[in-house]
């Protein structure tokens, strides 16, 4: 589901925008092919473990179609929130193995949205360079602690 | 300067000057023509009768004579149909109304595009049918000259280019702004040709019918 920012200024802006009654019923013709693409990707994941990334913003969609797609994919058992240069969200849909990963920027605007067909989205996995840095910090702090504790053991 | 700037700018103004100059020249030339005075005694005298006679001629000659109906009904009805369609397209398409407003200072509501598209398509279909008929009909082929060809093609061109611009089709690989420019230039070509070709019948047609009726009523002939 599309998240709406709680920033008061944004809320006011969105309310003003949505008061412009633009009811457009159009179809881009891309919704069904997208679902088929997801289906094929899930099949491939099960067969040979290949993950697939689909950029939702790159697909021409009529107004309201993206919301429809997200609503049809639904929500599953896992929803992870990341806090990195603004919020990001990795939500498993009602179809296990199909995730929706949304990156918001510092002003809570959805910048990119991917459908990832995978066991775990890459962004959720701890990254090696970050783990290396973390290990260095932990080692440094442990060494400091060890220096401070009197040698009673 | 892009071709669109040219079409919206100097080309339009040049064409406009030529159109106005041409209409004024030919119309006033006709009106100022010296006529021999008719010295015969009028059967039906007076200006009122002349005007009535003129108007009658305009009305009566706008429908085919009863005797010729069988031969020319097709031409008659299709001719009216495409003329009406052409002017409805020009006067009631939403995109044209700001142009009209800029010339006249006022405009009117536009028709829905769905309706206009049907009218324009029918108009174009009729025009093309009549032109092809003109090219192959044994009699029409003989009496058609270069003036006719140019006049017909310049009447069709704004419709074709207008539909292409409206539907955002790319003709000859041109992008929209160039298709729009071609449409404007086709209209400007029509404006330049109008005073000098057979299309000038839009001015002379009614004037000459009126004059004919006004002249003949003097002799007591109801034309």
């Amino acid at each position, binding site marked *: 589901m599309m998240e709406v920012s709680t920033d008061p200024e944004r809320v006011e802006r969105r309310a003003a925008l949505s008061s412009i009654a633009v009811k457009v019923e159009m179809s881009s013709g891309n919704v069904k092919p997208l679902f088929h693409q997801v289906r094929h990707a899930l099949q491939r994941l099960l067969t040979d473990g290949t993950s697939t990334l689909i950029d939702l913003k790159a697909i021409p969609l009529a107004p309201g179609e993206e919301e429809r797609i997200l609503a049809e994919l639904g929500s599953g058992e896992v929803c992870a929130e990341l806090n990195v240069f603004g919020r990001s969200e990795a939500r498993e849909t009602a179809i296990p193995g199909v995730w929706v990963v949304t990156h918001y920027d510092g*002003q809570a605007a959805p910048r990119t949205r991917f459908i990832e067909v995978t066991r775990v989205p890459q962004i959720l996995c701890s990254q090696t360079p970050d783990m290396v840095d973390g290990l260095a910090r932990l080692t440094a702090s442990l060494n400091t602690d060890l220096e401070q504790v009197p040698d009673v053991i | 300067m892009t071709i669109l700037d040219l079409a919206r700018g100097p080309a339009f103004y040049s064409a406009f000057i030529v159109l106005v100059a041409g209409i004024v020249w030919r119309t006033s030339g006709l009106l100022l*023509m010296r006529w021999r005075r008719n010295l015969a005694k009028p059967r039906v005298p007076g200006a009122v009768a002349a005007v009535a006679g003129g108007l009658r001629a305009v009305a009566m000659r706008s429908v085919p004579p009863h005797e010729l109906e069988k031969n020319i009904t097709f031409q008659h009805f299709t001719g009216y149909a495409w003329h009406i369609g052409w002017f409805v397209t020009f006067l009631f398409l939403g995109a044209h109304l700001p142009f009209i407003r800029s010339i006249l200072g006022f405009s009117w509501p536009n028709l829905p595009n769905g309706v206009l598209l049907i009218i324009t398509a029918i108009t174009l279909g009729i025009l093309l049918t009549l032109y092809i008929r003109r090219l192959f009909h044994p009699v029409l082929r003989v009496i058609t000259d270069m003036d006719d060809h140019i006049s017909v093609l310049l009447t069709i061109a704004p419709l074709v280019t207008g539909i292409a611009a409206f539907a955002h089709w790319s003709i000859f690989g041109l992008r929209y702004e160039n298709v729009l420019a071609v449409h404007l230039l086709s209209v400007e070509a029509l404006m330049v040709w109008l005073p000098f070709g057979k299309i000038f019948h839009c001015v002379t047609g009614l004037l000459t019918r009126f004059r004919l009726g006004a002249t003949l009523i003097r002799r007591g002939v109801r034309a």
Partner: protein
Amino acid sequence: MSYDDSRLGDYLRLRGVSRRGFLKFCAAMTSAMALAPEMLPRVAGALERARRPSVIWMPFQECTGCTESLTRANAPTLERIIFEAISLDYQHTLQAAAGTAAEQARQDAMQANYGQYLLIVDGSIPLGNPAFCTIAGRSSVDLLTEAAKGAKAIIAVGTCAAFGGIPMARPDPTQAVPVSEIIRDRPIVNVSGCPPIPAVIMAVLTHVLTFGELPELDALGRPKVFYGESIHDRCYRRPFYERGQFAESFDDEGARQGWCLFKLGCKGPVTYNACATVKWNDGTSFPIEAGHGCIGCAEPGFWDRGGFYDALSVPHWGTLKELGVAAGAGVALGAAASALAHHKQTVATRREQRAEKDET
């Protein structure tokens, strides 16, 4: 673990950008550059290894709007990552140094990175008089020519640098020209717009960093990925245009219903930019969505294309008064021509009558 802060990935890490943050940025840029999502690992790898480029930003006849567009973010945005990762060695608005120190820093950076630095230019260049635009007493033509010599590529940011923009608007008192009129031997990418969308500027920079070359350009030298489609083609109000439902004035019922703004002068059909998709202010909105027609600011000469509120179907070479003058000229010409014809006819008639009289 040792870091080499001349490498972009390490530089960002040293400044507290986690690998996740970096991947998030790469995902946003991959999407912004309209690349296939499968390219994400390649983009991340290339950016990770990219050398932090030296960037020289030369401002000429500009209003600083382009810099404002880029930097006017209230909270850290993804753009700032790349913006801070480049080595911005000269930028009037943002640099702390001033005067001779700043100029020396520029010269040093240009020499040290000769042939490798990226030159960003905003503002047009006046050819009328060198004094119209100078920095430290040197004319902008001089400065541009010198800076371009050692540049790997030039990014002309904003319509002024790309096409001449506002300074070039009639009557063009300074004889302003774009970068491409002066520099002919360096690759130039025009990122036009008044101002350009910040995400577009950043995506172009990212593309150059990732792939080491300029993105595919259109006939006007603009990146096709952002300038390949017209506003009209991606406008959400398009269905109203197709149906012929137009707003007639800014506060009428049609405007409130969000109808097409064609009659109010929208230049969307002839303007190529990413406003309708990428939008402004971090994707908040764009002029048409806010109820104002597109003014065509990414196109050359947009200031001289008639009124912003004149529809595309309205002639724009002057006002109604000039049209009246044109009509008057037409009437005068026409009347003169017919008077001449009448005179000739009179002369001919008299000659004929005289000849008849002579015969009898």
